[in-house]
């Protein structure tokens, strides 16, 4: 297919762009295969470059022969284009609609994008499972890297290499895979260096209504327990939801068959409920009525903050079991690709200081989300403005980022990165020139040859300029466990995402600059004093008379 077929009117002059808190721009609108571009054709004026894939939905309005297109983006921005001429406007609208809903992944922009920067380190190779396993090997010899899934046949959503208990052979893994949803047999998620406890994740056990059991499954997870110790299974579903899953072949680990494990049920919502929640929250944020009661009741009714609280609470619970109780943990929900990953990744943020660095956080996203098979393509296909009925869409990853932001707000000096890093990941998960978040699993990414055909987001982020932009000036390495508060009073609305386009951030940005200035100035003086002290020491060694008596 040629993009040209979809573009009926590639260029319109005299288009006026309206954006919140920015002056209007008049210029020429151009449509390309992947971008909507508006240029005033004057020097020094900002142009609009909008990826079609960032467009969530559009609305058309007509007043006489002047048409307007309201473009609602996945990053929650809303802009308006006033287009002279009814026909042009209709053509532009239908082209945008077609180009922003392309079905074929291989037509996406990352396959066409050529980097305008020098790739110093190829991000596709930055976080290989082999490397992560080397770190693990330096701490323990109880685990091995299994190649049982090297052709993705045992578990289509797992990566080719997974860490499993050393004494469990591949044959056992194959058997266990048949007993777990989607073949997701329990694998290592996190090893807590401090006490040797581990966190594993899996899909739900397929016990069904007649209480099927799998000895190999029991053997596998028991292999992670120290003699005489009990472990915790954290099921992210309520007991009712988990029981109902039996009718569809799923289920829970029964106490009879898993006597060494204590099962705890939590209530993290999933799929459509979350998508609905996001839509309601964004609608509340965009409400213009200036009515306090209305705002608070809409915020409450969206349930977004409830989800944040529930996810954080469950992550704290998992971290507590590991760090405070000294017990190993297995986390699963239904598929083990959504709520499970929220919990395992947030628990690591709490427990492991290395996840709170810029690079460590990339590693975490790579391990616990991309490699672990979170279906990004399905989940992030639409955002809060979509009119179409949600299918697989759900802001699971956005909720995770929101939770990280909450912890960052409570420990503003313990993260190497600033809020803008989290916002950046949100944007790129939904629309990007990079291939990182394309596909739904390692298998799909391999099939699409993404590492060969697209650029990794990490290649771009891990450059000096970007790292500098994303670094938190307040960062002081904190090697300890950080326990966030989950009280409602402690959890805030993430304004940087949800009110980003609704309010001017000028004063807050200025405060941030002021903060940076205070810290920079201090560093400058430190350097001066240190260099003077070195000079002085030099003088002292050269001239014995100057030495202090």
């Amino acid at each position, binding site marked *: 297919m040629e993009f040209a077929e979809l573009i009926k009117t590639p260029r319109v002059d005299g288009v006026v762009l309206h954006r919140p808190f920015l002056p209007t721009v008049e210029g020429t609108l151009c449509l390309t295969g992947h971008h909507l571009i508006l240029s005033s054709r004057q020097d020094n004026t900002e142009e609009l470059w909008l990826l079609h894939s960032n467009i969530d939905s559009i609305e058309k309005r007509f007043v006489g022969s002047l048409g307007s297109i309201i473009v609602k983006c996945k990053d929650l921005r809303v802009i308006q284009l006033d287009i002279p001429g009814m026909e042009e406007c209709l053509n532009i609208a239908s082209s945008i609609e077609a180009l922003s809903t392309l079905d074929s992944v291989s037509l996406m922009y990352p396959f066409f994008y050529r980097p305008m920067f020098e790739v110093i380190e190829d991000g596709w190779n930055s976080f290989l499972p082999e490397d992560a396993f080397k770190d693990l090997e330096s701490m323990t010899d109880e685990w091995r890297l299994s190649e049982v899934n090297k052709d993705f046949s045992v578990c289509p959503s797992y990566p080719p290499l997974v860490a499993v208990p050393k004494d469990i052979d591949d044959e056992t893994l194959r058997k266990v895979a048949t007993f777990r949803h989607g073949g997701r047999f329990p694998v290592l998620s996190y090893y807590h260096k401090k006490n040797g406890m581990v966190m594993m994740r899996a899909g739900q056990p397929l016990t069904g209504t007649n209480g099927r059991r799998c000895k190999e499954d029991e053997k596998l997870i028991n292999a992670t327990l120290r003699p005489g110790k009990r472990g915790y299974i954290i099921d992210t579903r309520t007991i009712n939801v988990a029981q109902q899953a039996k009718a569809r072949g799923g289920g829970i680990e029964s106490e009879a068959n898993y006597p060494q494990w204590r099962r*705890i049920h939590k209530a993290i919502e999933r799929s459509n409920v979350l998508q609905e929640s996001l839509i309601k929250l964004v609608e509340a*944020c965009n409400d213009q009525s*200036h*009515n*306090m*009661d209305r705002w*608070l009741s809409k*915020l*409450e009714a969206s*349930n977004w*903050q409830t989800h*944040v*609280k529930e996810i954080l*609470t469950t992550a*704290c*619970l998992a971290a*507590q*079991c590991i760090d*405070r109780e000294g017990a190993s943990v297995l986390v699963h929900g239904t598929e083990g690709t959504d709520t499970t990953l929220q919990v395992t990744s947030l628990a690591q943020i709490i427990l492991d200081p290395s996840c709170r660095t810029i690079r460590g956080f990339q590693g975490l996203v790579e391990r616990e989300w991309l490699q672990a098979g979170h279906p990004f393509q399905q989940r992030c296909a639409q955002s809060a403005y979509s009119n179409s009925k949600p299918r697989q869409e759900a802001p699971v990853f956005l909720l995770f980022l929101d939770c990280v932001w909450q912890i960052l707000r*409570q*420990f*503003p*000096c313990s993260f190497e990165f600033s809020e803008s890093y989290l916002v950046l990941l949100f944007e790129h998960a939904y629309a990007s020139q990079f291939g990182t978040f394309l596909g739904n699993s390692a298998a799909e990414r391999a099939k699409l040859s993404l590492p060969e055909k697209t650029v990794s987001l990490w290649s771009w982020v891990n450059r000096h300029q970007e790292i500098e932009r994303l670094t938190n000036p*307040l960062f*002081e390495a*904190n*090697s*300890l*466990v*950080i*326990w*966030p*508060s*989950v*009280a*409602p*009073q*402690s959890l*805030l*609305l993430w304004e940087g995402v949800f009110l980003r386009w*609704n*309010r001017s951030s000028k*004063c807050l940005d*200025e*405060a941030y600059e*002021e*903060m940076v200035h*205070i*810290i920079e100035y*201090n560093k400058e*003086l*430190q350097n*001066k*004093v*240190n260099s*003077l*002290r070195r000079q*002085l020491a030099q*003088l002292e060694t050269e001239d014995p008379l100057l030495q*202090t008596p």
Partner: protein
Amino acid sequence: MEFIRLPKVENVKLLDRVSPRRSRVGTLYLTATHTIFVENEAGVRNETWVLHSLVCSLEKQAATSSGYPLLIHCKNFQVLHFAIPREQECQDVHLSLQRLSQPESYEELYCFSYKPNVDDEERQNEWDFMNLKADYSRMGLPNAHWKLSPANRNYKVSDTYPADLFVPESATPPVIVGSSKFRSRGRFPTLSYYSKENHAAICRSSQPLSGFSARCLEDEQMLEAILRSNPCSDFMYVVDTRPKLNAIANRAAGKGYENEDNYSNIKFQFIGIENIHVMRNSQQKMLEVCELRSPSMSDFLEGLESSGWLKHIKAVLDAGIFITKAVAEEGVSVLVHCSDGWDRTAQVCSVACVLLDPYYRTLQGLMVLIEKDWISFGHKFSHRCNHLVGDPKEVSPVIDQFLECVWQLMEQFPCAFEFNERFLITIHSHIYSCQYGNFIDLNLLPSTHSLWSYLWTNRTDYINPLYRPDHSQTQGLLRPSTAPYCFKFWRGLYNRFDQGIHPRQSVEDYLRTIQEETQQLEEQLASHKQSPTASGLILLPQDLNQTSIFSLSNSSDPESGIADLSCRSPLSEDSTRDPDSDEAVYSAA
């Protein structure tokens, strides 16, 4: 003291609201001024001090296995939950505290027994620190349009007004007296703030005694005089801060509001801020939400909404913005009143001042503003804050709402204020604590101490590190957004004592430490320039690249590695030290 039935109770439990595991056992002491709980644990001297004057309510609850519970709510939003072993002891403590926390005469107030080590001359100086005349001259008064009126020198015209008042140049004593007779409590229209750039003024008064048809020539002349004192404008606003219905109801009682037909060139405007009773109930509802044991997100948000608190805060700020726009953008003078003109009027005038004039956003300026618009204009602190035993229907968090409006503005303009949140919270505490004489009857002041002087002496604790006098946010007027999502729940005040829910690292404290270090470095560099060889540089103990603000070894928080910087209590005597405060506030399943 005769009110103390039982000076000491042993084996008392101080229960933790969130997790029962963290309850502590100790001895409870009642002194003339404080309730003191001393924890028994060997090795730690853990004390909780609570001023009697801060106690707001006492509640005995049904006996439990841990004893006879006594719940103490404080005016600074601290909640203490004791369990006392024997019923009689609980009864005695309850009765003693009930009496001690409700002084019947001014002499019983804490400010008369609070005797820091300061001699009489110094104490006198404390009171000279605040000088309102200086603020009026800062505004450029008196001038050709406004004069200092001696009319109220002996508090004869209005006993709730200050002696020194500014009135329009053309307002003669008969006009003043005549107008005052037509206003509740004699509170005639007088100047609150003057903008020397454009001559527009904010004036304040109480409601006119207009009933359904009464007129007063002098009052009409008074408003005319205010209008004429602003040569650039041909009309003025009269803002009634009450809901229209309330104002109409007042007409039946011979009070009411100005009839536009009788006053020349006024634009009359209602701004619906609710009365003190609505505000009291609203805050009470909000505090109940703050105290829920482990609320869900919905419990909290629903409760916050149904309390209506943020809606009321928004109403006050909206009113302040209306006046600010009139004065700064239209150059039009405004007369503000409510019923008596000492609650809503004080709120609205002072909020407008903060928005209009950068001076009121400085440490000194905010103190001056509270002195001017609240203390000198007769806000009834002892009734509203329940300093003395009195009518509970007179209690209302009017000043809390003003302080919260300032806090909400600080959230929107982080660089615009010289002071920090701690400053507001400290002021709030001391308005209620009665430790200083500022908020009690003026005639009794000389033997007490002044809060303003205390705050000024300790000002380094209250400086906002992001404030710079030359910063653009510091200049001119503030234009806040009043979209509902800009109003936040003030956790730092209403959940102040729930340490577990506050951020564990404070950006502000971090920056303050950095700034202190920067200052030392500047001094060293300066001394080095003067005499390079005898430089102070030698004295530095360690290489500066190694500085760590949150020193891990000295940490008071072994879990999070965070030095305990945030809970320094402004009231040196009621600080609560809680060694276990750093657990996450959820409990294991």
